[in-house]
């Protein structure tokens, strides 16, 4: 299960979502600027406040980092 924590203005969030779409990977998005519960969850998981935060089956990636995503997705297959 993939969760992505975003704000609506963040370009790297758009790039991360586009990358998931391009790979045909399903994800659930949480807007942390309006969803306080999700914001708490994101901060607890990543120990920081910057977006995007990706949670790929429990592996946390901060920021849009393609090679990290590839590594985690590759290992999950």
């Amino acid at each position, binding site marked *: 299960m993939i969760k992505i924590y975003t*704000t*609506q*203005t*963040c*370009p*790297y*969030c*758009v*790039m991360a979502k586009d990358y998931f779409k391009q790979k045909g990977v399903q994800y659930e998005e949480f807007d*942390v*600027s309006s969803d306080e519960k999700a*914001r708490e969850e994101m901060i607890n998981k*990543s*120990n*920081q*406040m*910057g*977006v*995007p935060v990706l949670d790929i089956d429990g592996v946390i990636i*901060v920021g*849009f980092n*393609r*090679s990290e995503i*590839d590594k985690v997705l590759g290992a999950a297959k």
Partner: protein
Amino acid sequence: MIYDLIIIGGGPAGVAAGIYASRKKIKALLITDSFGGQAVISDTINNFIGYKSISGVELKNKLEEQLRGQSNLIDIKEGTKIEKIEKKGGDFLVITDEGETIETKTILIAMGSSSRRLNVPGEAEFTGKGVFYCTICDAPLMKGKAAAVVGGGNSGLESVIDLLPYADKIYLFEYSENLKGDPIYIDKIKNSGKVEICAMAAVKEILGNKFVSGLKYEDRKTGEVKEVKLNGVFISIGYRPNTDLVKDLVKLNEKGEIIVNHQTHQASLEGIWAAGDIADSLYNQISTAIGDAVKATLNIYDYLKKK
């Protein structure tokens, strides 16, 4: 196999070079971590000729789409970082983080720049924990909170404007006496009623426990050290060129930018060219980066023909 040209970077300069190289049928490879470069973090770009208004991400998509349209003529490696560049006789070896070694006759460096650091205590410790470099990304997290922007140039003023819809209170710290950004932005900030401008202020320390809780600065007029309580510090003091990889290969200026011949964009070492924010051009615009990269690529074409 030996490439004629390796282009390093996928921002406007790198992509422009890729398109020109493919049209000239130069045997080229473009290597980039990701497309778009610094342009991506612009909310709207209003001075890119041909578009009345375009977002950074849209522009990145257009650039990538046009380059990939030439993919039968150019090789592209995305998501790859370069570990090392070495000289091998008259050629070069480019070593990637995937452990691959690729040989090439010429290199165009277009790795751009990244946010400059303030270098004060607390900055590294609280990065992501209240210290941010991408205001457009993280401004919404300041909803109902107090935040500071450091830097009174255009990127600082844009950061303040990005924060206006969210933060209750914004401090703007500028080291010199006056804000340097465009008057159109300064008016908007002054009229908002939310922004306290602290000029002649030297930020000394970012305070916090788990997350940022305040900031210490020196009032340079009086020498007094003051403290403000806040939840976020957005650092917008410009950019530094990403020259770590090439600093021992080519000559840099005092700002760390690659010194190039401005007619040809050749660097100090034969076989290496540079364009965009990483080169010592006087102005850093998307359009000038593209123009410089095109000049460099055409010059590389001429060089390869003679070689």
